[in-house]
């Protein structure tokens, strides 16, 4: 059983609430850039949540995963922006 201190559990719950609000924007966004903005916000909040979770369960591997996730989400955002712009790769 994983034991997480109450403070970090509250922080993770608040971050999850923020992810839910961004997800509402992803679902009902009128245009395509709206949805991508919501996805970008969700990516950043998930990175922060990974760092907090890795500290709360006392293992460094989650923070390493968060670093790799940051760069992968950055590359995916750049490619989607290039696709919306209609440019050539």
């Amino acid at each position, binding site marked *: 059983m994983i034991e997480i201190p109450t403070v970090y559990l509250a*922080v993770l719950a608040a*971050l999850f609430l923020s992810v839910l609000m961004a997800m509402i924007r992803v679902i009902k966004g009128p245009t395509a850039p*709206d949805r991508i903005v919501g996805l970008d916000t969700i990516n*950043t909040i998930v990175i922060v949540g990974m760092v907090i979770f890795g500290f709360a369960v006392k293992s460094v591997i989650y*923070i390493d995963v968060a670093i790799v996730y940051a760069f992968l989400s950055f590359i995916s955002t750049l490619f989607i*922006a*290039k696709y919306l712009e209609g440019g050539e790769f």
Partner: protein
Amino acid sequence: MWFDYLIYVFLGVGVFFNLLAGVGLLRFPDVYTRLHAGTKCTTFGSIFIVGSVILLGLKMWIFDTNPAVNSPDVLAIHAAIALVAILLTNPTGAHALARAAHRSGVKPAQAIVDDLDKKTVKKKKTSKKGEK
């Protein structure tokens, strides 16, 4: 100890700004203002939350003789690298998204004059003529 209260204040500020990012995404009228809320607030909030983790790791490394984490210095350094990754990638991605939204024809809400419009249209026309 006052150091623990400092860490709690950092966590509170970070969580508050991340929640503001969600509220701003829901409430703002068009893409550019939503980008403003969704990127700036999360960058500022993640500075404070990851900063509190760095401070806790440094505190364990310096003061605690028998720390709860196996190697708190490694934890602090990796959290700092994650913070640098967020600080490098988040504004760059937001800039690319705003540029792509403007080029794909999304207008700002309630805008009367769009100063960037003529410049981008001119650029497109000249580049097409140059290609032909």
